[in-house]
């Protein structure tokens, strides 16, 4: 198993050995897994014209390498086990709960399998069609694959291509908009009638006085 600083060391030599082994293993993992697949990010940015980062698939916006939250350097023994399990999901269909991937990343590996994802690096545009346009994690009405193509956040309901969101939401919130329209126009009509009423009272008073 992977050693962590939580292990109890009785002598300095054991501590040094454990630290050294930990460093070597972490370094090895960083080389193997730490460098994410920038081809997908580069494609997404080029296709959409928007700046993106690793947060579209990874837990950490700067990618899996490092000691931050959701990065390899900060993983516990249990999380390393989950990571190793995720790394063996070469074929589709296996449930993935990788500590360095977010929900979209996990679903991507589950749906396509790691082998297919690695293949798609040569032609990143294929990732969207291979993944399909059915899944919508954030339920904003824009499929995750489309969000990948648009360079938007597939996990944030309040982020997406503005026009696509407009088209989706105008249908979703049509009853709200109609209710608001009726309310506002009634209020406006009421105000107009009220002002008209004041004017009529004023005219009547003037007539009476003359």
């Amino acid at each position, binding site marked *: 198993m992977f050693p962590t600083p939580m292990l109890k060391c009785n002598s300095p030599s054991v501590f040094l050995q454990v630290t050294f082994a930990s460093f070597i293993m972490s370094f090895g993992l960083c080389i193997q897994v730490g460098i994410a697949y920038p081809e997908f990010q580069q494609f997404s940015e080029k296709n959409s014209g*928007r*700046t*993106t*980062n690793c*947060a*579209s698939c990874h837990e950490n*916006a*700067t990618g899996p390498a490092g000691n931050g939250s959701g990065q390899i350097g900060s993983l516990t023994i249990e999380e390393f086990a989950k990571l190793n399990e995720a790394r063996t999901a070469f074929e589709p269909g296996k449930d993935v709960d990788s500590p360095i991937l977010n929900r979209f990343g996990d679903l991507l590996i589950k749906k396509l399998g790691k082998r297919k994802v690695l293949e798609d690096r040569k032609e990143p545009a294929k990732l969207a069609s291979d993944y399909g346009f059915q899944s919508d994690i954030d339920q904003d009405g824009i499929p995750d694959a489309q969000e990948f193509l648009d*360079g*938007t*956040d597939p996990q*944030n*309901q*309040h*982020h*997406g*291509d*503005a026009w696509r*969101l*407009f088209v989706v*939401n*105008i249908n979703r*919130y049509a009853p*709200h*908009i109609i209710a*608001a*329209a009726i309310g*506002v*126009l009634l*209020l*406006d009509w009421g*105000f*107009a009638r009220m*002002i*008209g009423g004041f*004017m009529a009272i004023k005219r009547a008073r003037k007539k009476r006085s003359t």
Partner: protein
Amino acid sequence: MSSGHPRTSKNLLSFIADRFPVDKLNFHHMVEEKRVPIHRMSWGYYTGGLTALFFLIQVVTGLFLLFYYQPTVSDANISVEFISHHVAGGALIRNMHAWSSSCMIFSAIVHLLTAFAMKAFDKPREITWISGVLLLLITFAFGFTGYLLPWNQIAVNATKVGLQSVEDLSQCLPPFLAGLPRVLRETFQGEASIGQSTLGRFYAMHIVLLPLAIASLLGLHLLCVQLHGMSKGVDKETDKSERFFPFFIFKDLFIWAIVFLGLFTVSICVPFDSFLPYPLLAPYDPLAATPPGIKPEWYFYFVYYPLEMLPFPVIVALSNILMAVLFLTPWIFKGTSRRTLQTLALSATAYLIVMTLFGEQIVHFVKP
């Protein structure tokens, strides 16, 4: 020499008396008798009312946001996320606040340009014009201070750039004033780098100082508008006019209703943050590198993109000239025809549209 002072004070008193005629300070003159000319530029009379509508929406939605927003560096971003994702109607309120702030600045600029084109600054409306220019500047200050409050990457980094520009002003000042921009920056910033003090100060300005300033100036502006009535707007005298109360008010209310519905629809359908790349919406991380694509809000593009292309002192000089011209407009353009003013206003509009929509491409073209 001895008669100089009484004459000056007499002139000053007469100036004030002309601008604030006491005999007209009544409901009958300011509302019942007031008439609005009808001509091809009449639509310009509605732009001020629309700006007021957006301001009212800002106040109401801002009050709702106050219930949940936490002005601390640790909680500001989380509280904004909480409003957007967990408070019932929170996303709508926040979007309405963001959309209407942009709409308010847009309609204020259109109002200024139409007022200029219609020569609405002519005697005795000088104070109306100057208070209007001040209101526009305060509106920009609202935008600048409000931009920091979500405490995300773009908010903090764009504010850093803005505050740095304040300090850079020292390059353009004589030596005895060179320290002033630094003092100003430190006053706004409150500490060595942008942090809790900055957020606290911007929050105080955004919700207390600027609203107080805008409320008092808006009162003065509206009083002047009602006292002097609508300017005639075109060079050729027009016979057609309508009563301000109730006919113009009816139309104004109807336009308000339609615009409010438009704003409601856009706010419920399109989150304002969608226009920004999502890495810029991440919580601000002081240890991380500045992400690419940091820009101010769209309404500062007209000065931001020229800053990218021209030396800083040139921009400062041009900005100062523009400010002086804006404040002295009633006297500089006293004898100018409305046709000339319309041409100038159209040129300014073209510049604003081109710089806002194509500024980035122009910068890439000039500085490949």
